[in-house]
């Protein structure tokens, strides 16, 4: 039963391939008819890259926060330095 089903698969695929190619023409020779660079430029202008904070800035901020939480008595000294 299982072998019969496996043997039918290439035939099924062949039939469907034939049917699909009759319904939808392959597009291997389709060509782009215009230059898309102006559209690309508009996209670049319209959507500037999101502002990203480098990972080491996040690490520094986390370290400072942790230090302030663990040693709150350094806050006045820190403020004095600022």
């Amino acid at each position: 039963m299982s072998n019969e089903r496996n043997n039918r698969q290439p035939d099924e695929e062949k039939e469907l391939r034939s049917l699909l190619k009759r319904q939808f023409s392959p597009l291997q020779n389709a060509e782009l008819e215009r230059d898309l660079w102006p559209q690309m430029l508009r996209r670049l202008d319209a959507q500037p890259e999101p502002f990203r904070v480098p990972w080491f800035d996040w690490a520094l901020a986390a370290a400072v926060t942790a230090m302030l939480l663990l040693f709150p008595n350094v806050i006045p000294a820190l403020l004095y330095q600022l």
Partner: protein
Amino acid sequence: MELLERFAAGDLEAFEALFRQHQKEVYRWTLRIVRDTGAAEDLTVETFWRIYRARERFNPATGNFRAWARRIATNAALDHLRHTRKETELSEDYPAAAHGDSAVNNELRGHLRRAFLDLPAKYRLVANLALIEEEPYNEIAEAAGISVALVKVRVFRAVRMLRKKLGSFGLEAAAK
């Protein structure tokens, strides 16, 4: 500095040069997946937008820009198929070749279009590329970021799904 190195460093002129070199190929590949010229143009721009944003992750020394671009284009096209599957019909940009038009053929075509649209996006992608465009499995696998074995499985399942939907219509007779 090489073009790819300049691109990875954020040079817009280098990006433009790469865009002009590869836009046609990205467009052709995308069009084969979505089968809609307008969507393929938009997706080509979307692909290069993703490429530009991800430029820091590209290694100019070892990376293959063409393969990388094709993979990003495939993902963009797959996202498009996922979002438009239930909302739109297949484009009429590239209609079927004439084959002795009849009421049966028209009905079959309608059934086939619906069955094709109903395929989940990842199966429609491989069905388009493997069954209609006859792209080699290894190229589909590379572009989709999956193994050749998984491409074969998806083709197998896509055929089964289409067969099931068209079964009552007499697929064998229609294909002859």
